[in-house]
C-alpha cells in the first residue's frame, strides 16, 4: 500500500494584525508525516497543541488568518502526486466528499436545523453527483440501513435526534460517497462513554467497509487505542513521537508521551495518577530548543537551546528527544 497523503515540513501560522500589532501563533511548526492508504492514523495531543489546525491544513480547508508559511501537503490521487497548494478552487471542491471528507466534533451543530435529515443528505450528495431527490433518498436509506441506523431518522429534524444519533448521522453524512480519505476531529468528544462505544464501532465499520484511510484526531488515548493503527503525538505544534499504536501504548520513548500514557487509568493498579507538571506553552512565543524542556524532568542544557530532530529510533518508531538520542548512542557505542 502506498502513501495517500503526506506533509513535508509543514508550517502553518495564524497571523493577525490588530491596531498595528502583529501576532503570530505557530500552531503547526515543521511537521512531516506520511499516511498510508487504508490505515487509521491517530493524532493525539492536549488542547491547543495544533491538532485541529493540522487537520484543517491537511484537508486544505483553511482561511486567513491561518496561513501556510512553509512546506506543503501532497495528495496521492490515483497514482498522481498533487500538491494541495497547486489545486484551483474547482479541483478542491471536486475532491471534497468524493475523495476527502470531514467528520466534525459531535457537539457541533453541523446539521441545518430547519432541514430534514434526508434533505441535508440530498444537498451533500447532489453537490457531487448528478442524482434526483428520489435517488439520493434511496442511497441514503440503504447506507443508513447498512450502518444499522434506524430509517426513521431520515424524516426527522436534527433537534429530534439525541446527541449520539446526531453524531452517527453526521458520520454517515460525511462518508455517504465513500471518500478515500476521512478526517475526523474529536468525533467522540462530548458524548457519554456508552454512546462513544457505538460511534467508535461505526467509524470502524465505515473505515473497514471500503478500506478508507481515516485520520483521527482526539485527545482521548482510549479512542486511539481502539481505532488507530499508528499514533502521532503532537506537542506545541510539533510532532514529538510517531509509532504503531501498540508501541506508543507499551513502550513510549518521548518523556511527554510517557507522561500521557502513564496518566491513563488502568484496571490493575489503583494508585493515583500523576498529571504532567506545568501547562502547555503559548504558541505565539514557544520555548526555545525542545518545546517540552520547561516541563520535562529529564531536561538537559542542550534541550534548552537546540531543537531535537525527529529520528527513527526503531523500525517505524520516530521520536524527537535529545535524551533518547543520547541513550541510543551510548547503547550502540
Amino acid at each position, binding site marked *: 500500500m502506498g502513501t495517500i497523503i503526506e506533509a513535508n515540513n509543514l508550517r502553518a501560522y495564524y497571523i493577525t494584525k490588530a491596531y498595528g500589532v502583529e501576532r503570530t501563533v505557530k500552531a503547526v511548526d515543521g511537521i512531516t508525516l506520511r499516511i498510508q492508504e487504508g490505515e487509521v492514523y491517530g493524532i493525539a495531543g492536549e488542547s491547543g497543541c495544533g491538532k485541529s489546525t493540522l487537520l484543517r491544513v491537511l484537508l486544505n480547508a483553511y482561511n486567513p488568518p491561518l496561513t501556510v508559511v512553509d512546506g506543503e501537503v501532497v495528495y496521492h490521487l490515483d497514482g498522481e502526486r498533487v500538491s494541495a497548494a497547486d489545486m484551483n478552487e474547482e479541483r478542491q471542491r471536486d475532491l*471534497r466528499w468524493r475523495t476527502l471528507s470531514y467528520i466534525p466534533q459531535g457537539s457541533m451543530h*453541523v*446539521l*441545518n436545523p*430547519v432541514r430534514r435529515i434526508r434533505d441535508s443528505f440530498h444537498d451533500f450528495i447532489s453537490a*457531487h453527483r448528478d442524482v434526483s431527490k428520489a435517488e439520493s433518498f434511496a442511497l441514503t436509506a440503504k447506507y443508513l440501513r447498512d450502518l444499522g441506523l434506524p430509517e426513521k431518522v431520515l424524516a426527522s429534524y436534527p433537534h429530534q435526534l439525541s446527541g449520539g444519533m446526531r453524531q452517527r448521522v453526521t458520520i454517515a453524512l460525511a462518508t455517504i460517497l465513500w471518500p478515500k480519505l476521512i478526517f475526523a476531529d474529536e468525533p467522540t468528544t462530548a458524548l457519554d462513554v456508552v454512546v462513544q462505544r457505538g460511534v467508535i464501532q461505526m467509524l470502524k465499520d465505515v473505515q473497514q467497509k471500503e478500506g478508507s484511510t481515516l485520520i483521527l484526531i482526539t485527545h482521548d488515548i482510549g479512542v486511539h487505542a481502539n481505532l488507530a493503527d499508528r499514533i502521532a503525538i503532537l506537542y506545541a505544534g510539533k510532532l514529538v513521537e510517531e509509532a504503531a499504536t501498540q508501541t506508543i501504548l507499551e513502550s513510549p520513548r518521548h518523556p511527554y508521551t510517557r507522561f500521557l500514557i502513564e496518566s491513563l487509568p488502568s484496571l490493575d493498579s489503583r494508585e493515583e495518577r500523576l498529571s504532567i507538571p506545568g501547562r502547555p506553552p503559548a504558541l505565539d512565543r514557544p520555548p526555545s530548543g525542545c518545546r517540552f524542556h520547561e516541563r520535562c524532568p529529564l531536561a538537559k542544557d542542550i534541550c534548552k537551546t537546540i531543537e531535537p530532530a525527529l529520528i527513527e529510533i526503531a523500525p517505524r518508531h520516530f521520536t524527537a528527544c535529545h535524551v533518547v538520542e543520547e541513550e541510543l548512542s551510548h547503547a550502540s557505542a
Partner: protein
Amino acid sequence: MGAKGSTMQLLKSYILPRVAQWAVVIFIGVTLTFLIPRFSPVNPVDDMIGRMTAFQTIDPQAVVAMRATMEDLYGLDGSLLEQYSNFWGRLLQGDLGPSFQNFPTPVNEIIAAGLPWTVGLLTTTIILGWLLGIFAGSLVGYNQHRRWAQTLERIVIVVYPTPYLIIALVLLVIFAFYWPVFPMTGGAQGTPALTWAYISSILRFGFLPGISLVIGGFAFRFIIAKALSTTEIASDYVQYAELAAVPKRRIVMSYVIRNTMLPHVNDLALSLGSMFEGALIVEAMFGYPGLGSKLFTAISNADYNIIMGIVLLSIVGIATGSLIVDLLYPVFDPRVRLR
C-alpha cells in the same frame, strides 16, 4: 403518538391558545376604541356638532340624525353597559355609522371605496420590497468581501435613513413634473373595466407611489437581512456545507435565508396587517384614492367615524396578521412545534 394524536395535540396546545389570544386582542382593542371617546373631558358630540356647524350650514335634519348616531356610537345614551352592547351589536352587523364630512354616506362605503386601492398598492409593494430586500441583503451578507456587495451596501445605507416621503417627492418632481412619464395624481384613468387600457392605467398611476414604497421597504429589509445572514454564515451548519462544497446557491437559499426567515415572516405579517391604515403620506402626496388619503382627510376634518372605522380595521388587521404568523411559525421553524 399517531398522526391523528399529534394533530390533536398541535390543535390543543398550539392553535387554540393562539386563536383565543387573537380574540382577546381584538376584544380589548374594540373596547378601548369604545371607551376612549367616553373618557374625553369634552363631550365629543357637542364638540363635533359645534365644530361642524361653526363654519358651514348643515341641514338641521342631518344635525339631529348626526347627534343620535354619535350619541349612540360614543355611548352617551342610556347606561354604559347598554351602549357597550349596542356598540358591539352595530359593529358585528358591520355598521360603522355615517361619515360626518360626507353625511349621510356610511363609513363602510367610504372605506370600501378606498380599500381595494390601498390593498392593491400596499400588498404589491410590501411583498416586493420584502422579497427583494431579503434576497439582496442575504446575498450581500454571504458575499461580504466582494466588491459588488460592498458597493450595493453603501448605496442602501445612504437610501435607508432617507424618509420615503423625500424619495417620493424626488420621484414626483423628476418623473411627473420635469420629465412627465408618469401621472402626478390619481389612481387610474377611464371607467373601471377589465380592459388593458384601464389596467395599464392602474399600473401607470400606481408606479411612482409604488416605487417609493418599494425603495423604503427594500432598504429596511436589506439591512435586517444582511445583519441576520452575517451571523448565519458563521454557523456550524453553513461552514460545514461550504466545506462539503454544497453549491453556493443552495447554501444561500436553504441554509442562510431559510434559517433567517422567522423574523422576516413576523415583520411581513405585521406590516401587511398595518396596511389598513394606508400609506398615509405617500397616498396624500400622490392623491392616491386609498385609505391613507381618506384617513388624511378624515383627520383634518375630525371625521371621527371614519377614523374609528379605519382604526378598528387596522386592529383586526394587525391581530389577524400576527395570528397568521403564529400559525405559520411551525412551517418555517420545525423546532417551534415542541415549544
